[in-house]
C-alpha cells in the first residue's frame, strides 16, 4: 500500500511535469511559416558572424515562440489583423497631401515596385551621415517633398505606412549594413544592448540572449528579433512600432526610458536588426 501511494505520487508529479510541458512548450522549431499558401519564410537562419555565437548557431524569429493559434494568424492575410491598417496606408499612398499637391505614388509609383526591399535594409545611414529608420524617410518625404505635416512617430498613420512598406519586403532577408558609416551607430547600439538599465538592472541581453526560451511569468522570452515589425499585438489590439517596444522594455526595468525616434533607439534599432540579418522580413507580423 505504501509503495502504491509512493508510485501514484510519482505518477502525479510526472503528470504535472507533462502538463507544464504542454502549456509551456519550448519554441516549436519544427513549425514552418508559409504565408498565403505560397510564401515560404525563413524563420530560422544561420547566426550572423558578428554575434560570435552569442545566440548559438541560429537566429530564430519570435514567431516560433508564440502559441499555435497566434502563429496561425500570420499565415493568411485574411486572418492577419494588421492588414486593415495596411489597407489604410495603401489608400494614403495614393492620396495627395500637403502644399506641393503630391501623393507618395507621384514620386514612388506603385508601392509594390517603389518600396520593394526597402525595409530589409533599414535602418541605414543617409548620405548626410544620419541613421534613419523608415519613419524618418517617410517624414522627410512628407515635409520636404510634399509640404505636408510630419506624422507622429507612434500614431496610426505612421505605423500603418511602415507596415505597408514592410509588406513590400516580406520574405526577403534582413540585411542591414553594420560597417562603414554605420559602424559607430552599431557600436552604440551594441553597448546599449548589454547595459543593465533601471532599478531592476536588466539589459536586453539578460532576457533575450541569456534567457530566450524561458518564461517571465506567462511571457515566453524570445530572442527579441525585430524582423516582424511593426507587429500587430493582440493585447494592444493594434500595431506596435519598434521604438515603442524598446521604450516598453526599458520602462519595465524601472528605468527612465529613451524617446521614440531619438538617437539612442535609432542606434539600438540598427544593432538589434543586425542580430536578425538573414531572417525573413515578416512585417507586419502577429504577436500576443
Amino acid at each position, binding site marked *: 500500500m505504501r509503495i502504491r501511494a509512493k508510485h501514484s505520487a510519482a505518477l502525479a508529479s510526472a503528470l504535472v511535469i507533462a502538463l507544464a510541458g504542454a502549456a*509551456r512548450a519550448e519554441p516549436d522549431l519544427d513549425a514552418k511559416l508559409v504565408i498565403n499558401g505560397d510564401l515560404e519564410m525563413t524563420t530560422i537562419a544561420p547566426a550572423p558572424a558578428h554575434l560570435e555565437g552569442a545566440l548559438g548557431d541560429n537566429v530564430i524569429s519570435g514567431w516560433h515562440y508564440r502559441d499555435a493559434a497566434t502563429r496561425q494568424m500570420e499565415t493568411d492575410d485574411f486572418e492577419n489583423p494588421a492588414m486593415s491598417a495596411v489597407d489604410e496606408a495603401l489608400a494614403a499612398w495614393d492620396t495627395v497631401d500637403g502644399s506641393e499637391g503630391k501623393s507618395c505614388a507621384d514620386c514612388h509609383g506603385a508601392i509594390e515596385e517603389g518600396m520593394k526591399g526597402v525595409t530589409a535594409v533599414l535602418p541605414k545611414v543617409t548620405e548626410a551621415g544620419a541613421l534613419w529608420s523608415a519613419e524618418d524617410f517617410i517624414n522627410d518625404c512628407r515635409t520636404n517633398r510634399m509640404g505636408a505635416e510630419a506624422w507622429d512617430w507612434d500614431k496610426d498613420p505612421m505605423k500603418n505606412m511602415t507596415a505597408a512598406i514592410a509588406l513590400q519586403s516580406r520574405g526577403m532577408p534582413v540585411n542591414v549594413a553594420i560597417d562603414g558609416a554605420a559602424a559607430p551607430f552599431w557600436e552604440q547600439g551594441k553597448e546599449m544592448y548589454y*547595459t*543593465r*538599465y*533601471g*532599478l*531592476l*538592472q*536588466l539589459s536586453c541581453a*539578460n*532576457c533575450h540572449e*541569456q*534567457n530566450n526560451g*524561458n*518564461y*517571465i*511569468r*506567462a*511571457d515566453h*522570452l524570445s530572442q527579441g528579433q525585430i524582423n516582424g515589425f511593426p507587429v500587430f499585438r493582440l493585447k494592444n489590439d493594434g500595431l506596435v512600432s519598434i521604438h515603442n517596444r524598446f*521604450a516598453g522594455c*526599458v*520602462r*519595465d*526595468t*524601472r*528605468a*527612465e*526610458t529613451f524617446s521614440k525616434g531619438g538617437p539612442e533607439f535609432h542606434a539600438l534599432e540598427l544593432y538589434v536588426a543586425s542580430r536578425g540579418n538573414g531572417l525573413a522580413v515578416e512585417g507586419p507580423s502577429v504577436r500576443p
Partner: protein
Amino acid sequence: MRKLFVLGAAAMMTLPSVLSADTAPRDVAFADDGSVAESLTGVAGDPTAGLENATSRGIGNCVACHVAEGWKDAAFPGNVGPALTGIANVYDESQLRGILVNSKKTFEGTVMPSFYNLDDIIRPGDAYTGKAATSPDVTILTAQQIEDLIALLLTFDEPLPE
C-alpha cells in the same frame, strides 16, 4: 537590537527621515561570500506578509522568475531563476539575506535584481512609468519586506527535488 529598534521607533515619531532602526542600503555589512548576518530591521520577518510580497506583481514578484512549492497556487510562475522548493536546505538566513539585498555580491553577474540596493543603477526610473526617478534613494523593497521574504523562504524546507 530590540532596544535599538524601540529607540528608533521612538525617534521616528519626531524625525522619521533622519533616524530609523532600519539599516540603510549603503550601510549593510556583507561578508566576503556576499551573506548578510545582521537583520536589516531587528524585527522578526512575517512569512505571511512575505508570501503576499513574493506573489504580488507590484511588490517582490518573485513568481515572475521562480517556481516554488510554497507558492504552488500562483498562476504561471516563471523559470528564469532556479526553483526555490527546498531552498531553506540550501542557504541559511544570512545567505538568503545577502542574495535578496544584493544578489551580485553572492552570484557575480547574475540576472537577479538587487532588492535593497542603491548603487550602480543606470537611468533610475519612477516606478514603471518610464519617467526619471523623483527620488535618488528608492529601493525595490523595504528592509522589512526583505526580512519578511527571508522568513518565508526559511519555511521552504521541503526535500530538494531530485
